[in-house]
C-alpha cells in the first residue's frame, strides 16, 4: 500500500484536523474535496488513504463521528473535532511550522563566508 500513498502519513492527519477546525463537522467526501481544493488538486486522496486516517484519529480521541442527514438529504457520517483534537492540532501545527522554518533555513542560499 505504501507506494500508492500520495500524501505523507503524518501530514494527512494535520490536514484533516485543520479542515475540521475551519469548516466544522464534515463527512469524508467533504474532507477529501477540501484537501484536494486547498492543494489546488496537486493531492488526490483515495478512500484507502483517507478512511484509515480518519479512523485512526477517532481511535486516538481527536475526532468523533456520527451519522447525520447531509445538505442534499443523504445519510452521511460526519466527523467533528474534539477538544483534545483541537489541542493536538495546535501542537502539530506549531511543530510543523518549526520544522518548515528549519528546513527552509537549511535550503536557502547562504552568504559567502558565513560560518556554518
Amino acid at each position, binding site marked *: 500500500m505504501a507506494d500508492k500513498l500520495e500524501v505523507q502519513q503524518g501530514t494527512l492527519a494535520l490536514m484533516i484536523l485543520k479542515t475540521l477546525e475551519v469548516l466544522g463537522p464534515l463527512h469524508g467526501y467533504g474532507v477529501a474535496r477540501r484537501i484536494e481544493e486547498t492543494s489546488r488538486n496537486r493531492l488526490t486522496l483515495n*478512500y*484507502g488513504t483517507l478512511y*484509515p486516517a480518519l479512523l485512526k484519529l477517532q*481511535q486516538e480521541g481527536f475526532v468523533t463521528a456520527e451519522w447525520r442527514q447531509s445538505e442534499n438529504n443523504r445519510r452521511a*457520517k460526519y466527523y467533528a473535532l474534539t477538544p483534545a483534537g483541537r489541542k493536538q492540532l495546535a501542537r502539530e501545527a506549531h511543530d510543523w511550522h518549526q520544522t518548515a522554518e528549519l528546513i527552509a533555513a537549511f535550503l536557502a542560499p547562504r552568504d559567502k563566508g558565513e560560518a556554518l
Partner: protein
Amino acid sequence: MRHLRAALARIAGFLTRHRADDELREELASHLDMEVAENVRRGMHRDEARRRALMASGGLTVAAEAVRAQRGLPWLESVAADLRFAVRTLRRTPVFTAVVVVTLALGIGANTAIFSVVRGVLLKPLPNRDGARLVYLRHSMDGPGGSNIAFSVPEVRDLRTGVPAFAGLAEYSPFSLTLRENGDAVHINVGLVTGNFFEVMGLSPVIGRLTRPSDDGPGVPPVIVLSHEFWLQRFGGDPGVVGTQLRLDGKPVTVIGVMQPAPFFPGRVDAMLNMVISEHHLSAQMVEGRTHRMTEIVARLAPGATVQRARTEVATVDARMQGEFKEAYDPASHYRVSVIPFKDALGERARLTLWLLMGAAAFVMIISAANVANLTLMRGVGKEHELVTRAALGAGIGRLRRLLLMENLVLALTGAAIGTLIAIAGVRLLVSLAARYSPRANEIRLDGTVLGFTLALSVILALLLAFVSSLPREGSFASVIAGGGRRASGNVRKQRLQRALVIAQVAVSVVLLAGAGLLTRTMLRLSNVQTGLTTESVLTMEVQLLDFTSATDSAADAAAKQTYMRMQREILTLPGVIDAAVGSPMPLRASIVQLEIKAEGKSRETGEAVPTAEFRTASPHFFHAAGIPLLTGREFTDGDGPGAQHVVVVNRALVDRLFPHEDPIGKRVAWTGDVLRFTPFSGDWRTIVGVVGNTRDGGLDAPPRAVMYLPFAEEGAFVGGGIVIRADSSAAALTVEATRIVRRIAPSTPIENVMTIAQIKDESVSPRRLNAALVSSFGLLALVIAAVGIGGVLAFSVSARTNEIGIRMSLGADRGRVQRMILSEGGVLLAIGLAAGVAAAYLAAGVVRGLLFGDAPPDPVTFVGVAAMMMCIGLLACWIPALRASRIDPAIIMRT
C-alpha cells in the same frame, strides 16, 4: 494515554468488526454517491460520472481492507484466517494428515511419558530444604551382600567428628515393627533416628512436630513421626492422630507429628521413631561395637563445602579407622566409604534403565520427524505449483512461509494432543516400572514442566518441518510459470535430503531393534535360569509370630514354635498338599543375616577374603517341601534340635568354597567373626549332615551365595518364620485354604508375601520383561515408520520417473528389469542404512551392557537377526512401488 486509548479502541473494533463492516460499506457508498452527484452536476453523463468516481476512489475493496487493518487486530485476524486455511488444506489430504498426526502422536506420546518419569525420578529437585546439599554415605566391601553394609555407631561417631565438610550428620537404622490395632496386625518399615535427623534432612512437619535432640537417649518416652504416605493410607489423613498412642511391638508409642512427603534411601519408610523403642539400639553392644553395622547415614554439606572436599575428608577418616582397628576391617575385603549426592543415590538403580528408555523414545521421535519431513517434502513438490500461483497472485514469501508454518503447527499440535493422551495411559504403566527401581516413583507427574516440554518439542518440530520445504525464491515465479507449471521431480538437493532421511531412519531402526533384541534375549535367558528348585508348584507365606524385642523370652519362643508346628500339621491335612514345612527366609528370598564362617582345621591364606554364608533355618522336610534337591547326606529330622548334637545342612556353594574336592559330610563348620558378639547366634562347631543344591536367593541374575541351614527348632523363632507348601498340582489354588488355617491359629499376626515360587521368580523377571517390551515396541514402531518412509520415497521416485520408465520400456526394457531397477534403488538405501545401523548398534551395545545378563555384547545372533528382519521388511516396502513401476504402460505415458 493516547496509545492506550488507541489500543483499547482497536480491541473494541476487533470485537465489533461485523457491525462496523456494514457501517463502513455504507460510509464508502455515500462518499461515492456524493462524488458521482458532483460529477453529474459538472455535466458528465451518469455512467461516465460513476466510472470517474470509482477510478478516483482507488478501489472500494482496497479501502475497506485498509480500514479493517487500522480498525481491529489485523495479525490476529490473519492468524485465524491462516489457521482456517491450514485446517482446510489438511482436510483435503486426509491420508497424509492422518499418517503424519499418528506418527507424531506416537513419537510425542512416548517422549512425554518417558520424560515425565525421568523428571520425577532423576531430575526434579528433592523436596528437602537445600536438598542439593545432602549426601548419602555408603559403606561397602567385596563379596556377596557387601555393596551396602551400613555403619556402626563408633564409625558414625568418627565420621561426625572427623569431617568438617559436614554441617550435620543424620543417622537412621532401618527397623521393622508390628503395629497392632483393633485385632489387625501389620508390619511397618520404620527408621530409628537421632533427634537431629529432620534438621539435617531439611524436612518440616505437615502437622505436629518432628523429633529433636531431647528425644535422644534412654529414659525418654518413645515417639513416632508418620510419613505422609503412611498417614494418608493408614489414618486417612486425619490430623487428630497426633497425640494419640499406637501399639508397636506391644509398646505404647505417642504420635507427635507427620512429616512432609519425601523420599528415603534405600527404600520407603512408613514412620520414624526415636531410638528408645529398641533397647538393643541403646545397649553397649550397639554403641560400642565397631563391627555392629546397622546405621545409614545422610549428611548435609557445610556452607562452602563441596562433595569433593567431603570425599577427601571421609577417605582420611576411613583410612585412620582402618589403621587403628585392624580387627574390624579385613584388608582382603577392601572396606570403603563413598560419598554420593543424595539425589543420585535415590536415582541410582533407575538411571541406566530410564536414560535407555529416554534414548529409545528420542530415537522414535527422530524417525517419526524424519518420516514427516519426507512426507512434507514429497507433498511440497506437489504444492510447488500451488505456492507459485499464490505468489503470483500477490502473497509475499513471508506470508507463504507463515501458511506452511501454520499447517505444520496444526499437525504437530494435534499430534501432541493425541500424544499426551497416549502418555497419560503410558505413565501409569511406567510408574509401576519405576517403583521397582526408585523410591521417588510416587513423584512422577504429567505436570506443567512436562507438558511444557511436550509443547516445546512440538513447536520445534513444526518450525523444522516448515523450513524443510523450500519456497520459490522471490522473483522466480515468472520463470516457473513460464516453464509450464507442473514439475513433479523436485530438485536434486531435495531428493538427496529425502534419501539421507531414509538412510537415517533405517540406521536408527536397526539400533533400536538391536537394543530391543539384546534386552529380550536377556529377559528370556533370565527366565530360563534354573532357580535351583525342582518344582514351581510351591506356595510360600511369611508369618512372623515373634517380635525381635522378645528375642530373650524363652517361654514365648517355645510357644511360637509350637504354633508353627500346629500350622504345618493342619496344612498337611489339606487335599492337594504333598508336604509342608517351616523355615526362614523363604526360598528365592535373600537372608538379611550374613556372617563369617570357618571350617575346622583350615586356615585362611593371606590375602584371601573372609568366607561368609547366609543364615537360614529349616524344619524337617523343608527341602522336600520347597523342592530343593538334597545332593548328599540327609535332611534335618525331629531328632535335631536343642540338646542334640549341633548339625547343619549346607549348600553346594559353601562346599565349593570351603571343601573343594572333599566329602563334606561329617566335617565341622562354625560361625565366626567379631560381629558374632552382637548376635544371638553361637559360634559352636556344627557337623555337616547334608548338602543341598544352590538356589538363586539373591535374584535370578545374582550368583548363588554360600548358605548354612540350621535346624528351625534350635534357633530363636524371632529370626523369622514362614511356611512352604508343596502342592501336587496348582500351588496358587491352595492360597485361600492355607491362609485361612494360619489366620485361625494366629489371628493377630500379619501374613505376608503369600506367593508361589513361580510368582517370586516372575517378580525378579518382570521389570526386565517390561523393559524389553517397551524397547521392543519402540523398535517395532521404528521399523514400521522406516518401512513407510522407504516405501514412500521409492513410490515418489517412481512417479517422478514415470516418463523415464516409459521411455525405457518402449526401448525394450522388460518388467523384470524395471522392477530390479527400482528395487536396487531402494536396496542401496537399505544397505547403507543397515551398515550404519549395525555399526552404531555395536557401539550402543556398550551402553546397555549394565542391563544385560549372560553373554556380553556383541551378541552376533541378535545382530544378524535384526539385520535380516530390517532387510526383509525394507525390501517388502520397496516391492510395492517396484511392482507399480513395472505396470507402467509406455503407450499411455508417451502419449501424454
